[in-house]
């Protein structure tokens, strides 16, 4: 299976064409998509037209973008003027955005060819993609297992070779955890590195877009395309505050001196084989001369509690806009205007979305605001200070991504709290706003992938990717692909 960069280089060099690449991916989609279920919409005709345009430009020597002709996919919470933007929800099933998200404009400017939009947990709320109101996605390594979530479709599409790379979004682990479950590389950049303009909001102070790719090099290439300031998103950080880097430039240069922090106490919460994979990865770094420092993260245990207050409070406010008035589902025969709101929302939102709206509304309601919401914001500060201290002692932090490998479809759907608790390793990273990456680091006894999580300080994605690349060069986990 060719990587994003290999395919990009082959198309640019005339070894293959964009049309041939698009057709090859659609041949695989015809064959495997019925089982994998990664896509909510596919736009073959549009993709082939775009591909032909790019091929013509390359043939005549015209200047083309950095991803010219390469077929990619995006999570269906990113607005596109083609196809619907559903967020995996019945409430937006027929919603057609009047504008493109910033990242879509960036992909277009790079001459990438978007071939489809990927399934997800409804409004990105979930860890298994089982909360999609529209479709079931399966894990390409074992169709009886979940792909993880919420960016399950974006991840499964890459793992199954149904696109060259994709974009997902990560509010509490939604890029890293499915990347771990499906054996691909998933990068959640620093909050503010990438514009959220046109990304449908879930938890606005936590959401961040990032790439899902076959390897670290491809993640750096994608980040080069999508990172940068955008004045339409006031939380996208100006480049004079946090300079952009060429993330490919020094990727191959390993760190001669590297201090890695680990938290042994936290690792103990993971399955034995997950712990073993993390230890083996640390051993790889040690063999490359890295120093391992054991630290404590005293407030890490409180991250799930703080997250499920803050994220749901933000969600209850963000999702108030789905009221059946301006767009989205409206109940068939409302008796009055209140019915338009309440019945439309009840009919079209799934159980998890309702649960989170309820929890967030409760946490923000009169009499509970100080006890839950304000308390959670204070604990968020303590959690961030844990990370600040960690990065004073080490260059990065290494943790598991998830306590387990992919679980069976249906196994956890009856107990939402148990599903939330599995987010333990990823959630604090969003609360602290720092970047994190999941890279393939092993397999369990059922041949299901295990990920390693690497975390570094805000706006140090260049360093994070270089560190990840050091491990990738020494191992071949990332080259192993599912047998579909």
């Amino acid at each position, binding site marked *: 299976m060719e990587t994003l960069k290999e395919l990009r280089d082959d198309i640019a060099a005339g070894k293959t064409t964009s049309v041939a690449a698009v057709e090859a991916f659609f041949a695989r989609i015809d064959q495997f998509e019925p089982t994998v279920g990664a896509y909510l919409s596919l736009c073959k005709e549009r993709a082939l037209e775009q591909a032909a345009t790019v091929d013509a430009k390359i043939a005549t020597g015209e200047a083309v973008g950095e991803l010219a002709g390469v077929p990619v996919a995006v999570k269906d919470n990113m607005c596109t003027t083609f196809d619907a933007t559903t967020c995996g929800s019945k409430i937006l099933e027929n919603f057609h955005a009047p504008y493109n998200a910033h990242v879509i404009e960036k992909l277009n400017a790079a001459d990438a060819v978007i071939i489809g939009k990927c399934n997800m947990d409804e409004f990105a709320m979930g860890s298994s993609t089982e909360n999609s109101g529209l479709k079931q996605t399966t894990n390409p390594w074992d169709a009886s297992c979940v792909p993880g979530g919420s960016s399950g479709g974006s991840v499964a599409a890459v793992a199954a070779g149904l696109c060259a790379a994709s974009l997902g979004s990560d509010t509490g682990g939604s890029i890293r955890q499915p990347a771990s479950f499906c054996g691909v590389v998933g990068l959640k950049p620093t909050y503010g590195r990438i514009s959220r303009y046109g990304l449908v909001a879930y938890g606005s102070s936590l959401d961040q877009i990032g790439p899902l790719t076959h390897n670290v090099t491809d993640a750096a290439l994608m980040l080069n395309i999508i990172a940068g300031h955008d004045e339409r998103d006031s939380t996208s950080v100006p480049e004079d505050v946090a300079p952009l880097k060429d993330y490919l430039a020094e990727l191959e240069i390993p760190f001669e001196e590297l201090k890695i922090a680990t938290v042994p106490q936290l690792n103990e919460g993971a399955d034995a084989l997950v712990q073993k994979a993390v230890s083996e990865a640390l051993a790889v770094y040690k063999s490359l001369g890295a120093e391992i420092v054991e630290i404590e993260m005293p407030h890490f245990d409180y991250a799930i509690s703080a997250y499920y207050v803050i994220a749901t409070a933000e969600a209850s406010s963000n999702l108030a806009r789905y009221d059946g008035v301006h767009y989205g589902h409206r109940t068939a025969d409302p*008796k009055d205007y209140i019915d338009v*709101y309440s019945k439309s929302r009840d009919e079209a939102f799934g159980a998890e979305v309702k649960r989170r709206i309820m929890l967030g509304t409760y946490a923000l309601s009169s009499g509970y605001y100080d006890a839950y919401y304000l308390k959670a914001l*204070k604990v*968020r500060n303590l959690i961030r200070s844990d990370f600040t201290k960690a990065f004073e002692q080490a260059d990065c932090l290494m943790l598991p991504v998830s306590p387990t490998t992919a679980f069976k479809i249906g196994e956890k759907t009856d107990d939402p709290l148990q599903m939330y608790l599995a987010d333990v390793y990823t959630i604090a990273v969003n609360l602290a706003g720092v970047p994190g990456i999941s890279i393939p680091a092993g397999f369990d006894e059922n041949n299901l992938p295990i990920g390693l999580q690497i975390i570094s300080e805000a706006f140090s994605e260049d360093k994070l990717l270089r560190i990840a690349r050091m491990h990738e060069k020494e191992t071949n986990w990332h080259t192993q692909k599912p047998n579909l």
Partner: protein
Amino acid sequence: MTTKIDEAQVRRVALLGRLELSDEEVAQFSGQLSDIVTYIEKLNELDTDNVEPLAHCLPVHNVLREDVPKPSLTNDQALANAPARENEYFKMPKVLGDNSGA
């Protein structure tokens, strides 16, 4: 400490969130939200008296831009997804009852 969110509380919150829940959903959420809130109260183990709340992690504040008119959506674009439309307006059921006065 256990905080039980009873069915009356679930209904009150559902009203605030404009969700018309079925009786079955009310019963289910009462149990599930009680479990979740009980877990969340773990936060009370921490002393946060001298800690500032952190709403976001950005190194920027008060982001302003020049107030310059720019092209925006046309009426037709803005109304294209409307569940019901009349001429240049979103259409809704009557807000005031026949005898409610104004």
